[in-house]
């Protein structure tokens, strides 16, 4: 399907829709964060635009990225923008009623959403979180390089957001290119789709250009000054910009600072700020344009349910911070890692199922893959289960163009309007439809080719006659899936203190020397080269 869509996009000269609804939650006031880093120095920020107001971004710039003090100042600036937003949402709560497994709980009414341009920027957020959450602050008299007080807290939040972003279907921290490519398919490669400017040119070509031309202009078009018309969305910068423009400006700043010339330093700093802003602003505007494009799509039916899980995640971390728990550890222990993986696998299965149920295009892919089938009911034959209390087990036959890839007896599921859970059924038989039936659909795509019979096994109430509306009538259009609609997680894992011997025993129980990953690298002669 993707390959076909890409070919169609190439033929049409612009992106084709890959979804009929929006599968991602978009907050009312997302925080957009566009970071830039310094070439050649991993993790050293050069600047960022951040904020919730598209017309008034907060610009943060490090005039000399190699200066540690200035770098901490940047993190403090980022914290002063983000932490108030986080605090605001953290205090706005509602009460979640008690359920069978849970007492009445407080849940944040909404959670702040952070949007970055691409996955590289998302990785950078993770890196900033990792590098700042353990830093010691000015409150600690022994810290050799103290940082402003809110920085480690910022690191903890960014770490939480970046970690949550690994859960399929979560929307706390979004990489815009990933969201856009979920909803549109372009005629370029997945690698090229990581370029936000080019991706937007395919989806919404600029006036007078088609997708490929717009993308080419966004990727390589340079103005008379040799700079890219559309600067890269970061976090890496354009080398030409670095060499021709930024480096001289940084040199001027260094020189003025070394000379102790206050006004000249301020002037040079303003110049660096102007230059960095010139690189950030186009991406900033692109991010908002991408969000506008996404907002034009109607929200999918299950998006709110997934966002609620994000709100739980946000609330959970808020509680951990308030309870004074230490920052997230450097590495997950065995139980945490297994828990996270299991949770993400469930989330992935749930996301796939929900997207298919919300979106006929997503369902089409599953139908093509033989994981679902849809068609018209051709016959209903009432039958009952054997046993002391016979239950209705009607046989439903439908004519469908889809060939389900499953053996008879396989479980099938059907979404019934108004029902809380999917109706279960068992596949009985799959027979080729005789040629006579197929002619009805001739001319308008492939007609039904298979006659599939299923036995409904649930969702019909507990009486001897099925609940009204729970058994489809002949002529009704129905769709069955061979995947569960609401997959559940597996069994609980042992407590961390009960980590078995096969996995090294409980964490912290020093069974011997610390693992190789915990001890610093030995000093070798090469270290002194």
């Amino acid at each position, binding site marked *: 399907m993707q390959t076909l869509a890409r070919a169609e996009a190439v033929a049409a000269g612009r992106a084709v829709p890959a979804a009929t609804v929006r599968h991602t939650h978009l907050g009312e006031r997302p925080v957009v964060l566009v970071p830039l880093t310094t070439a050649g120095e991993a993790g050293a920020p050069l600047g960022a635009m951040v904020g919730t107001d598209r017309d008034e971004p907060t610009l943060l710039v490090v005039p000399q990225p190699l200066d540690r003090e200035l770098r901490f100042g940047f993190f403090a600036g980022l914290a002063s923008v983000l932490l108030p937003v986080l605090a605001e949402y953290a205090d706005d709560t509602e009460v979640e009623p008690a359920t069978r497994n849970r007492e009445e709980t407080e849940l944040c009414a909404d959670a702040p959403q952070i949007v970055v341009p691409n996955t590289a920027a998302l990785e950078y957020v993770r890196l900033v979180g990792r590098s700042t959450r353990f830093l010691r602050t000015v409150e600690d008299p022994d810290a050799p390089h103290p940082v402003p007080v809110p920085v480690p807290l910022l690191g903890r939040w960014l770490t939480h957001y970046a970690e949550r972003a*690994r859960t*399929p279907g979560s929307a706390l921290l979004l990489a815009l290119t990933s969201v856009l490519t979920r909803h549109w398919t372009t005629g370029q490669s997945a690698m090229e789709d990581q370029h936000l400017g080019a991706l937007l040119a395919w989806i919404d070509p600029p006036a007078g250009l088609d997708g490929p031309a717009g993308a080419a202009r966004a990727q390589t078009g340079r103005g008379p000054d040799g700079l890219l018309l559309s600067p890269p969305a970061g976090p890496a910068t354009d080398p030409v910009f670095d060499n021709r423009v930024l480096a001289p400006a940084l040199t001027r700043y260094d020189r003025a600072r070394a000379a102790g010339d206050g006004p000249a330093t301020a002037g040079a700093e303003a110049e660096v700020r102007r230059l960095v802003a010139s690189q950030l602003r186009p991406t900033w505007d692109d991010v908002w344009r991408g969000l506008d494009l996404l907002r034009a799509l109607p929200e999918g039916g299950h998006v709110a349910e997934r966002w609620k899980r994000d709100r739980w995640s946000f609330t959970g971390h808020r509680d951990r911070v308030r309870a004074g728990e230490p920052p997230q550890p450097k*590495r*997950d*222990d*065995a*139980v945490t*890692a*297994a828990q*996270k*993986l*299991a949770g*993400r*696998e469930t*989330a*992935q*299965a749930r996301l796939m199922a929900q997207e298919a149920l919300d979106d006929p295009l997503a369902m089409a892919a599953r139908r093509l*893959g*033989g994981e679902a089938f849809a068609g018209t009911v051709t016959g209903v034959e009432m039958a009952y289960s054997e046993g002391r209390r016979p239950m209705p087990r009607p046989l439903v036959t439908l004519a469908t163009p889809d*060939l389900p*890839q499953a053996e008879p007896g396989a479980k099938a599921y059907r979404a019934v309007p108004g029902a809380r859970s999917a109706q279960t059924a068992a596949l009985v038989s799959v027979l080729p439809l005789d040629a006579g039936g197929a002619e009805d659909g001739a001319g308008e795509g492939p007609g039904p080719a298979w006659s599939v019979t299923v036995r409904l096994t649930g969702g019909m109430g507990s009486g001897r006659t099925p609940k009204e509306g729970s058994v489809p009538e002949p002529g009704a259009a129905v769709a069955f899936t061979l995947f569960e609609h609401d997959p559940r997680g*597996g*069994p609980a*894992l*042992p407590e961390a203190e*009960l*980590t*078995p*011997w*096969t*996995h*090294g*025993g409980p964490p912290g129980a020093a069974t011997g020397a610390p*693992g*190789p*990953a915990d001890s610093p690298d030995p000093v070798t002669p090469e270290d002194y080269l």
Partner: protein
Amino acid sequence: MTQSAQPAARPEPPSAGLPDPGGFDPAAAAARATEAILADTLRGTARGVVVDSPPGAGKSTLVVRAARELAAAGEPLMIVAQTNAQVDDLADRLATADPELPVGRLHGSDSPPDPALRRHPSIAASTSVAELRDRPVVIATAAKWAYVRDTEPWRHAIVDEAYQMRSDALLQVAGLFERALFVGDPGQLDPFSVVGAEQWAGLSWDPSASAVVTLLAHNPDLPQHRLPVSWRLPATAAPLVSRAFYPYTPFCSGTGPGERRLAFGVKGDGGGLDRVLDEAAESGWGLLELPPRHTPRTDPEAVRAVARLVRRLLERGGTTWSAPGPGPAPLTASRIAVGTAHRDQAAAVRAALAEAGVDGVAVDTANRLQGREFDVTVVLHPLSGRPDATAFHLETGRLCVLASRHRHACLVVCRAGVPELLDEHPSSEPVRLGVTVKFPDGWEANHAVLAHLAEHRIRWTL
């Protein structure tokens, strides 16, 4: 296939320990290995024993024997297998080998055991472990064991197919036993996860790694054994499979050259299909090479070629002689399997076979053929017709599973040009700190197999 396609700096597998075919008694070697394993399991002091078993080396036999001896010693035993089919198969073998031994078959409420097990009065099935606790042997899937809570740990456990078990699955069940025998085939498909797990790569408890990798990372001193003889693979196949997939732990075939024979009642008509069948009957391997072409995954020509090959195989009335078994046996559809890389390919082959009027041949993906055995296999090569070679298609285990299911002959259907494709796609998986590099890599194993198959190649056009 030229020598130049081989990587220049190919590490030479050590020849030490390679069984000498002349004057070597495979049965005695296998018996020695088994005795050593049982000694460590029954009387050893280590908490775990790891057994590496190449394809068809009598892994199940070992599990049954160890289970019986542990039960005889009065040690309560739990057995962990990975799928319900494996559990049913093991329970069946246990009950057949020892009808007096009470076996508990623990199962989920959604997955009742195979009705065929009812013929064994010694097997009791239940969804509740409490009802089975008094039985000397209780057997279930890892997924079912993970739900077992609040019970006294078992003295012993046997973990079957441990290399296909994920580390997090072991984490869930390891609290249930004190000591365990881990048995598995390191050459088969690794466990996988549908979501990325790179963030834990390099950690000794990476939840997506194989259970044995985690176990050995934390307990490097555990005794490790291996079974040295493959009873399934014929003398024609064991050397290639051993060299290509187990370069550092060689094994040999339990049968000598010529002891296994395959012959056809109907003489070949000289066509391509018959020539490749004759070649495979003669040498154990046959490559049916279609003209080079980039195709969709369900390459219609290749699928038709597979179906016609299988039909011809049945039409010609094959007979097999399996030493040391008695007399000849007819080669029936149930003794033939078709292996593919993808599920849609398997579905396409199934449909083509149904159209050709062939019934009863097992058609499945490598993942699902793992652990099964047939007389003749027909393999649709994972790289056939592909424009690229991804990590999925290059995975060593996939090819190893497909090339090691047969007792007599393996027929491969493939489009020409795969060696060139391999050369254009050297493996480029990132190297991660702390992760043990697995040898051999799929790229090299693919080349080794193709080089061997090239000697048994018949070109054919539909």
